[in-house]
């Protein structure tokens, strides 16, 4: 089967957010070309933001992605607050971290149980998985309840699971009441066992062997596992402030895709997301999470992209505990938000979306209108890495029938939990300035 | 404690007879014999018909009191509930509560001439009045039924016309649009009035149909000398409780479900003509 030319084509990737296609061209047993094509229709967010009031940015950018709207709201608010020279008091900071925990849990569990696990267990979907045996049904049901607990956080702190309404530049609209917070903490405590069970479940999956020397890029914070702040670091010595991002990274248009790909300047692909965070911040996880990770057999460092699913489960566990800690130690602030007056300025920020670093940069004018916006989502950044993984990996599936080969290739893509809606939020307006 | 007036009672669908395209008559019977026995209605009253999972609507009782077993409802399939009813087959269980509302003045009509004027589905609530009048034919003077349908195939209860006529009803039918087979009148119902040899002083007029048609009928009758207090109309509005609590069916001071649907025209005259009131 390894003679001649062959093309493995997946017209539309399933179980990813958004619309993407994959083409792997093989010739004589060699990978000739790989195109991870994102055909999701472009939505021009960076253009739409021009002329809008800065207070509208968190609501508008949330709509880039229904799976990780909180990430957009977090990066947007922090970038704008940076521009306005504001820093938030610790209770508001804590609420934002809490909100992010909710999104990490909800998004990771969705990916683990619904999008990725069926690959490892060879089901078309988690619904088919649930319908196949009582044990798997229980597993799926438990994952759903865990996801619900994550959503409960976003629901309370954000107002609703998708496109939260309670986030604003300067803080929040309303601080959840004590009774609401207490009920949420209870829900989360009840979810801890499920988080452990999820980790045990995925840890038992048979991971294909892989080992590659990636450049991992993530935030790193002085004493926390990174979410909303930190410096941008890599395992190859990168250590920069947010503002330097454009000096080190650059987006490219590729002819076959509606999304731009981001690469290291003068270099190549890099890897963002849970595995990068794990490799760069493993020491910032609290002892319980570290121990659970160790028991699950996760190594550090870990260069197997298939292990991402395990890292996600570790992060879920961490986020549940972190959310409980944040709720238990919460002291309500005097006011739900810090008022501000607009000034002409520029602001840059990066936060850790579930899928990796999310860069926002805004230029605002004297009356608080946006004059320029740049957004670089994690999926754009991983896109080149995904292609390179496929080039490395494709030869090993050559002997499989087309459908199986396609499936194995998809699994490689899903290691990155690509969010295609995010990646096509724009047609790069950014290029204009250059 | 007061029992819940919103509560439907199970009834079994016994028969479905197609009447015209989009209209069928449903025969149904309360599941509990006691409830069936306790149910007494008067011509012109209506029931609330409930379809579990879908909703509840007001439907006139098309059968006369004491006419066979159970109750008959003639229903046009126009919306959510009625369309869902359309697919029911005998044996299905639905809910019923009633009877509600006022009735045609069948008793008051003794000794007088009666003109029944129906437009379209408006014949359904008049049918029990026809049956009641004919059941005691000798008690009344002349009995006319003026009936207007959109087209010949839209006429309800065609099979019964001969019996009615034999029993002493003078039936005049008109259609908006005739077809090749149609030999009768063409035009709007109120115009049929002009064909009647009325003695206005001894005539009662009962009408049910679209509001515009009823208004024209009323004017025609009054123009012919019938007293406004001798003209009865049956009105429709959205109804949800049927017991004067929910407020949907108001027309000025009237709750149509409780004080109506049948009114002496006099009582509602000043509001009926008000557009969108």
């Amino acid at each position, binding site marked *: 089967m390894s003679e001649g030319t062959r093309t493995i084509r997946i017209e539309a*990737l*399933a*179980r990813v*957010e*958004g*619309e993407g296609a994959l083409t792997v061209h093989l010739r004589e047993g060699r990978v000739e070309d790989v195109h991870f094509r994102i*055909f*999701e*229709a*472009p*939505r*021009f967010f960076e*253009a739409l933001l021009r002329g*809008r009031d800065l207070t509208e940015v968190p*609501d*508008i950018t949330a*709509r880039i992605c*229904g*799976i990780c709207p909180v990430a957009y709201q977090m990066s947007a608010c922090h970038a704008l607050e940076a521009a306005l020279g504001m820093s938030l008091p610790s209770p508001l900071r804590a609420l934002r971290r809490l909100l992010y925990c909710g999104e990490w849990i909800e998004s990771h569990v*969705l990916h683990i149980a619904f*999008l990725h696990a069926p690959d490892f267990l060879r089901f*078309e*979907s988690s*619904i088919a998985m649930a*319908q196949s045996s009582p044990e798997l*049904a229980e597993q*799926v*049901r438990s994952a*759903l309840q865990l996801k*619900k607990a994550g*959503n409960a956080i976003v629901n309370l702190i954000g*107002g*609703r*699971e*998708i*496109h939260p*309404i*309670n986030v*604003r530049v300067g803080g929040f*609209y*309303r601080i959840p009441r004590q009774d609401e917070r207490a009920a949420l903490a209870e829900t989360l405590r009840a979810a801890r066992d499920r988080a452990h069970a999820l980790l045990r479940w995925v840890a038992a999956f048979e991971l294909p062997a892989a080992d590659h020397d990636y450049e991992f890029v993530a935030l790193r914070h002085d004493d926390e596992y990174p979410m909303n702040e930190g410096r941008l670091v890599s395992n190859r010595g990168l250590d920069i402030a947010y503002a330097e991002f454009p000096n080190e990274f650059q987006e490219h248009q590729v002819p076959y895709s*509606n999304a731009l790909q981001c690469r290291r300047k003068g270099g190549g692909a890099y890897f963002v997301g849970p595995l990068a965070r794990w490799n760069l911040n493993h020491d910032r996880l609290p002892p319980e999470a570290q121990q659970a990770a160790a028991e699950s057999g996760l190594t550090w460092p870990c260069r197997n992209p298939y292990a991402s699913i395990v890292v996600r489960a570790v992060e879920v566990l961490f986020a549940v505990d972190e959310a409980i800690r944040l709720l238990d130690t919460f002291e309500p602030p005097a006011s*739900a938000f810090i008022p501000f007056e607009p000034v002409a300025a520029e602001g840059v920020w990066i936060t850790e979306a579930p899928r990796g670093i999310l860069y926002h940069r805004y230029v605002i004018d004297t009356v608080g209108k946006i004059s320029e916006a740049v957004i670089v989502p994690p999926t754009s950044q991983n896109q080149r890495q995904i292609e390179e993984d496929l080039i490395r990996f494709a030869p090993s599936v050559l002997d499989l029938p087309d459908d199986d080969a396609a499936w194995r290739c998809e699994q490689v893509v899903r290691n990155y939990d690509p969010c295609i*809606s995010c990646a096509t939020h724009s*047609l790069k*307006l950014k*290029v*204009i300035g250059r | 404690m007061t029992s819940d007036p919103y509560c439907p009672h199970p009834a079994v669908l016994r028969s479905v007879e197609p009447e015209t395209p989009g209209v069928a008559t449903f025969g149904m019977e309360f599941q509990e014999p006691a409830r069936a026995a306790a149910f007494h209605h008067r011509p012109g009253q209506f029931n609330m018909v409930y*379809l*579990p999972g*879908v909703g509840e609507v007001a439907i006139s009782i098309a059968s006369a009191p004491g006419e066979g077993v159970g109750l008959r409802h003639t229903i046009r399939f126009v919306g*959510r509930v009625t369309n*869902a009813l*359309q*697919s*029911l*087959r005998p*044996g*299905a269980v*639905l809910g019923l509560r009633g009877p509600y509302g006022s009735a045609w003045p069948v008793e008051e009509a003794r000794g007088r001439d009666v003109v029944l004027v129906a437009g379209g589905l408006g014949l359904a609530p008049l049918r029990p009045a026809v049956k009641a009048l004919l059941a005691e034919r000798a008690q009344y003077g002349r009995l006319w039924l003026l009936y207007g349908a959109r087209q010949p195939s839209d006429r309800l209860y065609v099979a019964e016309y001969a019996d009615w006529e034999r029993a002493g009803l003078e039936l005049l039918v008109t259609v908006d649009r005739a077809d090749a087979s149609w030999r009768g009148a063409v035009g709007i119902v109120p115009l049929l009035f002009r064909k009647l040899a009325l003695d206005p002083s001894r005539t009662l007029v009962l009408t049910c149909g679209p509001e515009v048609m009823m208004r024209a009928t009323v004017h025609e009758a009054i123009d012919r000398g019938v007293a406004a207090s001798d003209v009865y109309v049956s009105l429709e509005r959205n109804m949800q409780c049927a017991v004067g609590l929910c407020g949907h069916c108001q027309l000025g001071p009237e709750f149509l479900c409780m004080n109506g649907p049948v009114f002496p025209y006099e009582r509602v005259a000043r509001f009926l003509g008000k557009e969108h009131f």
Partner: protein
Amino acid sequence: MIAQPLTVLNTRRAPRPRLGVFKFASCDGCQLSLLDCEDELLAVADRVEIAFFREATRRPLEGSFDVSLVEGSVSAPEQEAEIRDVRARSRFLITLGACASHGGIQALRNFSRVDDALAIVYATPETISTLPSSRPASDYVHVDLELPGCPINKRQLLSVLAQMLSGGKPRIDQHALCLDCKRQNVVCVLVAHGSPCLGPVTSTGCGVLCPSYDRPCFSCFGPAPQPNTASLAERFQAIGLSADHIRRLFQMFYNQAPEFLEEARRHE
């Protein structure tokens, strides 16, 4: 035997009704709402056959559907044929959310000339496929029901499915948000705080989120029937909003809804 044969979805007769979920230009949020029904998802999957749902299953697109849920706006050339194909395969087509029903937030670009922008922006604009504007499905095909929201409310989606499974044509409430504000004891943020709330002209459905978070509604459920936007805009002016602010309020998620489009124009 209870009210048996059901009109819209036939639940009692095998096979189960087939459900398809389709995506056009969007954020995925509306279809995610279905996966966010953590307590009901498996029950839904039991009652209906989830026959196509790319975000959740590898099953290929085949056959026809009793109900199709369509997310996203038509904004690329090939999507015009796609939406027609979905319609042809579907008995009952429901659009999910602001994008599918009105073009969504990305329809803000309908206000500028995308062709020109493309040429300036792209080194090779010809490789990018996009339509000049972002359009609702109803511009191309008949839509049986539009579920409003950016995103939709999953409760409303479940209610629609439940109604169909019970044999009724689904309906949803579309009155002004204020009615539910009051039913839920939420104090009016416009009257009590002077916040520019769009609730009086916005369709209900969200569950009164913003006012219950001390925030004025910014209409992610779009216009209620017969919205008196002019009177509300006048009120906003009286409480000190600039024309530009009023324009932006009406140019959000439902910027293409005729009533909002027109009101925004009055404040240009």
